[in-house]
């Protein structure tokens, strides 16, 4: 049966879609053992959606990997379970066992230690344990200044080191995918997408997302000017502190004690797009971890954070 491309997809989005599909196919064709980093957020949901298209009519030819820190929103885990069943995904879930044994958590140890041990180190462990040589992620260049220079195929030397001075120039989309033993590549099919592109695409393709992206009445605490949703009772309440029921939504997904909500009534994709277009805050403003220190993203990247 012959169908025509969805009329809702603009030429601009169609071009981004084609580029991302090309990058995904390139990864499969060039690497021995690729993996899709599935963080359950909107960006990796878009990457997953694109990957299903890229390899059709075949199935997804590589596994998905979720680095679970133990502090994911319950809604995220629920959503993950649903999507794995619907799409029959081959999903690997990894949590840093040493971090778990040492009881590393964002409340007692702060966001930096927690993220380093439970996200960065955990990711390296999982990549090493399975011998993955290419890890596909949903990061975009427009997210943050340090990412503006990131490559589509970002080379990591042995030990997952990202050396900003030793990245390969990328000309004409002729990617240099060659690596030595022990080295790896991080691959970013959404490099050229903006946050608006992602949302426009989610709307046009009707991609399901974790409900937290949409506004609902949720119990939140006000802390340091941030709205934190207390997803379980591991976060102690301060004296006289009480959760209020507010209409809020989240702009990014992450560990719940580290991810701030904002007040919103945007309950649908179109509402969210409308809200974004009139918003004045950048996407990462809701991430507590990025405000810890200057140029923090770049430092984390060098250490191997996505």
């Amino acid at each position, binding site marked *: 049966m012959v169908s025509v491309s969805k009329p809702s997809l603009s030429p601009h989005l169609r071009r981004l879609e084609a580029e991302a599909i090309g990058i995904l196919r390139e990864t499969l064709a060039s690497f021995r053992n690729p993996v899709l980093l599935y963080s359950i957020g909107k960006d990796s949901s878009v990457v997953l959606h694109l990957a299903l298209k890229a390899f059709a009519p075949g199935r997804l030819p590589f596994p998905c990997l979720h680095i679970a820190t133990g502090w994911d929103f319950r809604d995220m885990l629920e959503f993950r379970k649903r999507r794995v069943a619907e799409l029959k995904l081959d999903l690997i879930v990894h949590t840093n066992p040493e971090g778990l044994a040492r009881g590393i958590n964002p409340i007692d140890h702060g966001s930096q230690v927690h993220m380093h041990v439970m996200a960065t180190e955990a990711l390296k462990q999982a990549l090493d344990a399975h011998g993955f040589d290419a890890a596909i992620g949903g990061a975009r260049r427009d997210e943050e200044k340090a990412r503006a220079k990131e490559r589509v195929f970002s080379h990591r030397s042995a030990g997952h080191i990202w050396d900003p001075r030793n990245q390969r120039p990328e*000309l004409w989309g002729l990617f240099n995918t060659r690596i030595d033993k022990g080295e790896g590549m991080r691959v970013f099919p959404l490099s*050229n997408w903006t946050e608006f592109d992602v949302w426009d695409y989610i709307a046009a393709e009707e991609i399901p997302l974790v409900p937290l992206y949409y506004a609902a009445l949720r119990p939140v605490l006000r802390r340091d000017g941030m709205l934190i949703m207390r997803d379980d009772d591991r976060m102690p309440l301060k004296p006289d502190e009480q959760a209020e029921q507010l209409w809020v939504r989240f702009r990014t997904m992450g560990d719940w004690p580290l991810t701030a909500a904002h007040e919103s009534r945007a309950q649908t994709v179109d509402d969210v797009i409308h809200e974004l277009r009139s918003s004045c805050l950048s996407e990462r403003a809701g991430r507590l971890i990025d405000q810890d220190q*200057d140029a923090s993203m770049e430092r984390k990247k060098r250490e191997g954070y996505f």
Partner: protein
Amino acid sequence: MSNQRIEEGRGLLRFLTCGSVDDGKSTLIGRLLHDSRLIAEDTLETLARDSRRHGTVGEEVDLALLVDGLEAERQQGITIDVAYRYFATQRRSFIVADTPGHEQYTRNMATGASNSDLAVILVDARKGIVTQTRRHATICSLLGIKHLVLAVNKIDLIEFDEAQFAKIVEDWNKFSADLHFSETQPIPVSARFGDNVTTSSARTPWYSGPTLAEYLESVDVDYGLRDKPFRFQVQWVNRPNLDFRGFSGTVASGQIALGDSLVVANSGRQSQVTRILGPDGDQPTASAGEAVTICLADELDLARGDMLVPPAARAEVADQLAVNLLWMDEEPLLPGRKYLARFGHAWVPVSVTSIKYRLDINTQQQTPTKKLALNEIAFCNLEISGRVAFDPYTENRATGAFIMVDRYTNRTAGAGMVSFALRRATHIHAEGFLVDKAARAALLNQQPQVIWFTGLSGSGKSSIAKLVEAALHRDGRLTYSLDGDNLRLGLNRDLGFTDQDRVENIRRVGEVAKLFLDAGAIVLCSFISPFRAERRMVREMMAPGEFIEIFVETPVEECIRRDPKGLYQKALDGKIPNFTGISSPYEEPEAAELVVSTAGRTPQESAAAVLDYLRLRLGG
């Protein structure tokens, strides 16, 4: 942020900005983002904080800090890499490649240009067209950019002087007449104060042209990809089960419809399109830029790297090309050395056989050269092991470009653009003889072999090789020895000891060894052969298993002590330049078939070790 969706029509514009260090590139992009109201509030707060710490404009908010990215660069105050910025107006979305103006980073500019349709070249109004302007324009032209904006910046610093602006434009026109731009729009701007960036300046009443933003929103940069012949490079063969076999890739140019005939460029085999799968399933047609999977009526031998083309408008196929090459690696390009090249999705071994000339990008002059250093551009002959399908770069950027990769470091070492095929070699076919290598080997009752001894001068290579040859001869085997002395006195007497000459020396040795091998002999070669790449080059001339590398390992201190020819003494006295181990490097083998340590061993003992190994290999 604008509430309106981007209008259909103009689509995405990818452009790059180029200028010298202080021309104000970053400030200009910052100004574009700022005046398009695209800077989020928290970003502006960070900016204000950063301006106080790193800024260069006193109390003002330094817009350049919006786009300068990495920590180290910010501290040095220069952009050292290509950064991509994204913004959209109501009429168009943009991707800006921000590329450095610093002298040594030509490669970054080329990278940005390879991914752009238009370039904004910045000129300081006080300085006019300078060497760097010529450099940037040359690179843009070479990389095939047709549309330019000449942004004459800091117009405020020349008191908005019309005459001076006109003079700069005139200089530009004179200079750029030989370059292949189809359209240049000169605009007087002040990035710092915003004149003619997004709003027309009252201070340049004599200028009636578009602002920079207006121009970028409206310029038509259609390179006509859809109207060019159909080109499809097979990226991946999609065969999920026995019932489906499709060829996935992105249409490089042209269009295709169900039922159309296609041929494989390399083999000429033909078939018809039976299905086209796009991102949403079956579709009747596909055109440039679409990522699709094509199914064909016949089972053709078709793999990743092949190109599908229409029978009536085929791509060229060749094994020798004339190319423009930009070198991007710290280690210079040496003719004869093997690299890997990527044409489309095909990876092939290549070497530059000769450098016709180096292009001085400041003066556009052509000068002879024997090697190509970082950031240099040359016109070269490229030899390919195998054949590739291509179009000249000026006709098709997607099928006329390639990258070169260093085989040891995997660094992207060069970026190339094909000019034309060299026909000479394609008509010389290897002569087939009735008596071949196998027949001669059978007559001699032996397995032809190249045994390659490598090591420092004085390590004992030749002594060991002589003893080994004598023993093999006693065993009844036909042998022949090649060494530096017997070849350099004759065949190679025109060669010296520079890196280029060493490469050529070894190449010739390899060819001679190959002829003796073909004659059925066991060839013993003793050469310092200090570079891994050259040893690998010779290895690849032979069939697998025919080349045995033996590393004669002797510490340089021991070689100096032995110094049988007195050469080390001369080298240490500075009388011999480029002496391996002293003033020229020796790269030890990483995977030699055999390593013989001579320390504490007589040559006889070392030879015996080699013979043990060889008798095992050669049998009998």
